[in-house]
């Protein structure tokens, strides 16, 4: 078995553990068993899935000689991995009920879709970061911020569900276990600030190198990347000034993340020097 098959096998294991965590959490929820024991089982699956995913990305990184962000498959895997990293911190700090279940479903969906769509992993940029660790840091931070925005989309979805249940007086089932509106709003604000901070730092690092070699970045990538950053920054400012709050804020965060995900396509396709790694993948 080649090392490239091994990395996919590890990533499959990670994705399946996320899925197992999501399913066991869902079953516990339908049986209204939100106990500490159930949370431990869910978190065990998530930690296991995250470790296998990290191992898979590590093996892939060794194979490509750098941070594995060379194609859509790797980027999506990295976004799911980043979201789980943030979840481990947010979940521990705020003890947000149901966030583990939502994070498990989200990570499983991203990881499985990226594994199932073969063309996403067909090509790989050669000498992607030009052996420049700063550009590699820029890329890793940018994709990590997408992980943060992904988790923000999840907590925004939870906010919308809680708001809907309270307004429509439908307080049973899943809604019973959702965190409070105020707690979700606070988490959303903090995640948005963290994501914008990471993306700003990433773009700052990238800009420093772009000034030296402006031809290294295509115009579509530049516009899309700056556009995503600018819109998130504006949303953050509007939230800070209490001009965009509650349900509208949650909707914007949710929709914006899907648009940001779609922007990964043009950003990735703007890269030159695509090569095919292995025919079986």
């Amino acid at each position, binding site marked *: 078995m080649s090392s490239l098959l091994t990395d996919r096998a590890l990533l499959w294991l990670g994705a399946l553990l996320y899925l197992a965590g999501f399913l066991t959490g869902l079953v516990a929820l339908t049986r*209204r068993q939100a106990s500490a024991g159930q949370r431990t089982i869910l978190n065990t699956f998530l930690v296991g899935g995250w470790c296998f995913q990290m191992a898979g990305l590590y093996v892939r990184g060794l194979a490509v000689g750098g941070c594995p962000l060379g194609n859509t498959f790797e980027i999506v895997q990295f976004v799911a991995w980043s979201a789980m990293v943030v979840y481990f911190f947010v979940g521990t700090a705020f003890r947000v009920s149901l966030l583990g279940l939502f994070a498990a479903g989200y990570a499983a969906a991203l990881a499985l879709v990226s594994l199932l769509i073969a063309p996403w992993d067909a090509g790989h940029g050669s000498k992607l970061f030009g052996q420049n660790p700063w550009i590699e840091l820029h890329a890793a931070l940018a994709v990590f911020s997408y992980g943060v925005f992904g988790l923000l989309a999840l907590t925004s979805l939870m906010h919308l569900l*809680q708001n809907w249940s*309270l*307004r429509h*007086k439908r*307080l*049973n089932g899943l809604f019973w276990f*959702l*965190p*409070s*509106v*105020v*707690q979700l*709003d606070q988490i959303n604000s903090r995640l948005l600030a963290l994501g914008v901070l990471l993306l700003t730092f990433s773009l700052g690092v990238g800009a420093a190198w772009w000034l030296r070699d402006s031809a290294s970045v295509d115009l579509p990538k530049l516009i899309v990347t700056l556009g995503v950053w600018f819109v998130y920054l504006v949303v953050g400012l509007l939230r800070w000034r*209490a001009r965009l*709050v*509650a*349900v*509208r804020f949650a909707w914007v965060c949710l929709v914006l993340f899907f648009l940001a995900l779609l922007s990964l396509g043009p950003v990735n396709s703007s890269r030159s020097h695509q090569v095919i790694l292995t025919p079986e993948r």
Partner: protein
Amino acid sequence: MESSLPVLFLLGASHHTAPLAVREKLALDEARAATLSTRLQATPGLREFALLNTCNRVEVYGVAPAASVAQLTATLGEVTGCTGAELAGVLQARVGHSVVEHLFAVAAGLDSQLVGEAEILGQVKAAYDGALARHWTGPVLNRVFQKTFQAAKHIRTHTAIGAGQVSVATVAVDLAGRIFGDLATTKVLVVGAGEIGLKTAQAFQSRGAGTITVASRTLANAEATATQTGGWAASLAELPELLAAADIVTCATAAPGHVLTADLVATAMKHRPARPLFLIDLALPRDIDPAAAAEANVFLYNLDDLAVIAEGNLARREAEAAKGRAIVAERTAALWPQVAQTLGRGE
């Protein structure tokens, strides 16, 4: 069966057997409870006893020969002032393993008027602790009560009989928790200084609400209610300012029209758009304009909404009660042979 052999018995009345008028007569204040205890101690043949005295039940659990148990009915009538005819229809007497089964069910909240309420377990514990401290209990009741507490805890842990609130005031407090999480930082505004306002304010106070302000047309009434809830008093004239500062507003006035109009709520929200406002309308006719609910970040619940939630929770608890009763039956069957052995009989 020989009448001289001791039996485990229960003698008493509860909301299941006695109407409110009789329960009022049976209810024991401190002095009458002490009198009854003294009389029980003096009852010939009564080896052990414990007295459970709550707002909905008066029950004597004990160990005595069957002949002595018969005398206790008369004692109970004399202490409470109830006639024999009044007691005849309402007093329940149980003997043997059904006493254990009943006590398990009572302590777990399965026999309560609001199924699954938790207060009764504390009351049973207090009754037992009092009897133990005064050496009224012995080997039989000690074992039965210890096993009762284990069974009650098991049932509350392994079934959902305690899930969800079942009174309007506590449902409102529960909902506030879903909106604000920790209530310690919330500001509660109670509009109306009547009994409903007081009870709701007390429910929020018991859950650790940050500050409570009581507003009423008559400042003296507001001050009286505020004093009982550790809150502040205010006049209704200050309502616009109070509303802008409040997180939770409960209205229960006798006003014929809307006390909180949609415009008033909209104006208040302009001052605090990021902070949710929870409006609870407990008045009939309604105090809060239903159109206020259209405002973003405003959650409005009226009396019917809260009652529907409470009834739903109660129905779910009653559905869970079947699981609790199965556990009671199982645990009674396991315990009874040991109790019977202690009593010196082999049932």
